[in-house]
């Protein structure tokens, strides 16, 4: 008789620790992969699982192994049909006699993609944005849920027992199974006692015996049919309901004139992704509107927004006007939380800046929850500009708005790590998302 151990209930993810070590090891490669994904994919795409190829760099396990193309070997093979000793057999191209393949070495490895969880993807995305941990945590958090009553369930935690429903079931079952009531039993016992009190004779004796049997039967029945049986018990059922949240619309405005190159667009995209992540956490429904502009502005789809260049001058106010028009048309401020993110290299038509101030000050800032402006500058320039007040004409113009409106944020960015400070205020203001009811 061997010893049997049922291990099925043991914790499963024994190799989770090894997986994490592996991901850490391959961090650089995975990060690059996710970055490419952000570059190529849509703003809203990041926030889910991603399949990535198994990384190879830094994850090789070298050992001393024979070079395939040297020396003399002998292969012993089964299934000879027509060969005779001395026959020459042409070698198949690409080297025959491949042995069992080990992970990390085969050609076909490109086909192998493994799935990174949402959290792992976001971790990789956040890597060089230098977000504070608390912000990372709340961005990773899915919508907050609130439990809502939703009928009854046959299983649950003891604290959720619904006594009324349980007792009703118990009562019904007791009637159906004809469980003797206490009163019946007591009446019978009383009857026996009465009979016993009388002087005994054969008839009463017989009667008493019969009654006792009856009493016995009733008690046994009472014992067998429980007063409250596990099948009666009902629990209150709760369904997690997403918190009732309003909807938000996010306007992405970007200058697409020739001066915005790949690097600028890449930074801008990350800036938009981050804001979008924040909004999807906070609002149940998030829509994105892309407006690109040169000397004229136009609402476009995401692909056009990021990948099509257009030549022309730069008139920023056209974009603001377009945004205003769309708000009027589709997103009444009473129903929508309006967020705007603008990315530009700061070029603007000299006379246009005044118009921008006016548009923002008079109209848009009254409608918007938040307006973030990033000016993407060259890394070499970042030393010069730093936080000085002078700068491009748009910068100076926006400075005026910034001083008047607390919900207006502006920043010069040269590297991914500069993006977060733009939002610092925004993230700081957010209500505590992690508190769930």
């Amino acid at each position, binding site marked *: 008789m*061997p010893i*049997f151990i049922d291990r099925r209930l043991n914790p499963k993810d024994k190799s989770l620790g090894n997986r994490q070590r592996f991901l850490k090891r391959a961090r650089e490669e995975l990060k690059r992969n996710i970055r490419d994904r952000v570059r190529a994919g849509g703003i809203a795409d990041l926030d889910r699982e991603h399949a990535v190829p198994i990384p190879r760099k830094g994850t090789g396990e070298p050992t001393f192994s024979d070079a395939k193309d040297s020396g003399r070997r002998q292969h012993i093979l*089964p299934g000879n049909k027509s060969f005779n*000793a001395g026959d020459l057999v042409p070698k198949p191209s690409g080297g025959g006699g491949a042995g069992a393949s080990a992970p990390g070495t085969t050609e076909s490895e490109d086909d192998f993609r493994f799935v990174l969880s949402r959290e792992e993807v976001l971790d990789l995305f956040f890597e060089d944005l230098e977000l504070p941990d608390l912000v990372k945590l709340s961005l990773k958090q899915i919508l907050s849920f609130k439990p809502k009553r939703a009928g009854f369930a046959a299983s649950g935690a003891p604290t959720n027992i619904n006594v009324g429903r349980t007792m009703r079931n118990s009562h019904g079952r007791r009637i159906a199974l004809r469980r003797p009531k206490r009163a019946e039993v007591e009446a019978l016992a009383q009857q026996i006692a009465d009979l016993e009190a009388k002087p005994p004779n054969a008839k009463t004796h017989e009667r008493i015996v019969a009654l006792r049997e009856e009493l016995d039967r009733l008690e046994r029945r009472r014992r067998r049919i429980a007063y409250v049986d596990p099948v009666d018990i009902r629990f209150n059922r709760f369904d997690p309901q997403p918190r009732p949240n309003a909807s938000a619309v996010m306007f992405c405005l970007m200058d697409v004139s020739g001066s915005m190159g790949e690097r600028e667009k890449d930074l801008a995209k990350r800036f938009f992704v981050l804001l979008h992540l924040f909004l999807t956490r906070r609002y149940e429904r998030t829509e994105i509107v892309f407006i690109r502009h040169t000397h004229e502005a136009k609402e476009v789809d995401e692909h056009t927004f990021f990948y099509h260049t257009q030549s022309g001058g730069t008139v920023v106010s056209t974009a603001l006007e377009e945004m205003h028009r769309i708000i009027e048309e589709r997103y009444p401020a009473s129903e929508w939380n309006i967020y705007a993110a603008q990315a530009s290299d700061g070029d603007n038509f000299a006379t246009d800046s005044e118009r921008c101030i006016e548009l923002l000050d008079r109209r848009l800032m009254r409608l918007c929850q938040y307006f973030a402006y990033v000016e993407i500058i060259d890394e070499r320039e970042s030393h010069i500009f730093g936080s000085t007040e002078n700068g491009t004409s748009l910068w100076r113009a926006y400075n005026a708005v910034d001083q008047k409106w607390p919900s207006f944020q502006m920043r010069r960015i040269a590297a991914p790590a500069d993006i977060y400070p733009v939002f610092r205020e925004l993230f700081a203001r957010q209500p505590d998302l992690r508190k769930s009811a």
Partner: protein
Amino acid sequence: MASQARKSALLFSGSDWDFAKLSRVYDEIEAIALEELRLDIYPVQMEVISSEQMLDAYSSVGMPLMYRHWSFGKHFIYDELLYRKGARGLAYEIVINSNPCIVYLMEENTMALQALVTAHAALGHNHFFKNNHLFRQWTDAGGILSYLDFAKGYIARCEERHGLAAVESILDAAHALMEQGVFRYHRPPKLSSEQQREGLRERLEYEERSFNDLWRTLPPSSGKNKPEARDEILAERKKSLNLPEENLLYFLEKNSLVLEPWQREVVRIVRVVAQYFYPQRQTQVMNEGCATFVHYTIMNLLFDRGRISEGAMLEILRNHSNVVFQPGFDDPRFSGINPYALGLDMMQDIQRISTAPTAEDRDWFPDFAGRGDWRETLLDAWANHRDESFIHQYLSPALIRKWRLFVLADGADEPHYQVASIHNERGYRKIRSALAHSYEIGAKRPDIEVVDVDLLGDRHLRLQHNVKNGILLDGESRDATLRHIRRLWGYDVSLAAVDAETGAVLGERSTKDL
């Protein structure tokens, strides 16, 4: 009467299993195995696991306990992918060479499969582990689990103390040398007990206390520069370090000047694990053959006695024939010689030769042909051979013909393969020794040893690769591995390729050039 009636009844019916059935089947199978096959086994511990746990076990080289390392995570991802995509099924069982012998059963198996697996692993492998001389001498079945437990804890503590990266870099380097981290010719020292380790520590402390710097100032012996004297010094040096040394990990662990004590212990852990698996790799054909032969024999006996139904037997046979399927070399499914098939066929062949030999068999195997006691012959073979010697001893011409084996000579610089031998009178012995040789692990993997190091000079570690048949090392992986060795050694390392027959130096690679 009653027992007679029960005896003829089926052991189980239907495909669902439960622990009572498993236990009943095990008892029956064990009884048959001990009586009919005269097996000798460790006590058995059967553990039922789910498929996820099976995957977990896969990634930690089949052991229930293993220290943590990223490479296991990589293998896990790889195995899981193959499994999820349906490219590969999971093993029905894993068996661990320990005392008691641990057998993992998958919960998804049907009852018929569980019976098959029980006979295969709990009896077949178990007997082999307990009786084969390699396992008896080279592995410590009683101590392995507690050792791995120690290893896991030790490495976790090291990670806490010295940081993940530091431990990882040592483990990476040691893993690269696992192949060169076993003693092939002499027995490994026994796993030292806590007490012995304590004693060692005390002795080291004593040596440190009684160290006297004066000895160092003694004048060196004269005539140091004469060539004979240099040779003498060289010989002396090699002798004091026990060179040449084939176990690189052992050498580095004992002699590296840069490793801290905990790093040495980590290297040692990897070395012990490598050594533990070494016999398994030398006895693949025999081990699987033994287990397959045992399950096949037992299942047929059970069926003949009416203890398992036809339906169950059909399922068992289907699985059995899947396991021992051997496609020909030109079949797209061909991926080398199937050790299950070769092992089983050879053992059944021994059975046949013992009971019904042909004249040819009597010629080839005068020792046991026609003696009739095939059990004795098999038990003897299981106990005293490894793959290479087993094939050398027992592969019969009949089997060579049945398999239609042939030898293909492959010179890297020739455009053609040449068929060297086929299954005919002239070829039998050649095929047999070629096949046996291909199972010689020592010959298959690169033969690399430490030949010299001047600890008092530049501490340059010299390795030598004995090149056989002109098979050189793959450049890229060689350089990467050398870098790992350098990390463990701390000083430059060079590897010279020397032709094993002529002694000609074919090339040298040093970490200085990397």
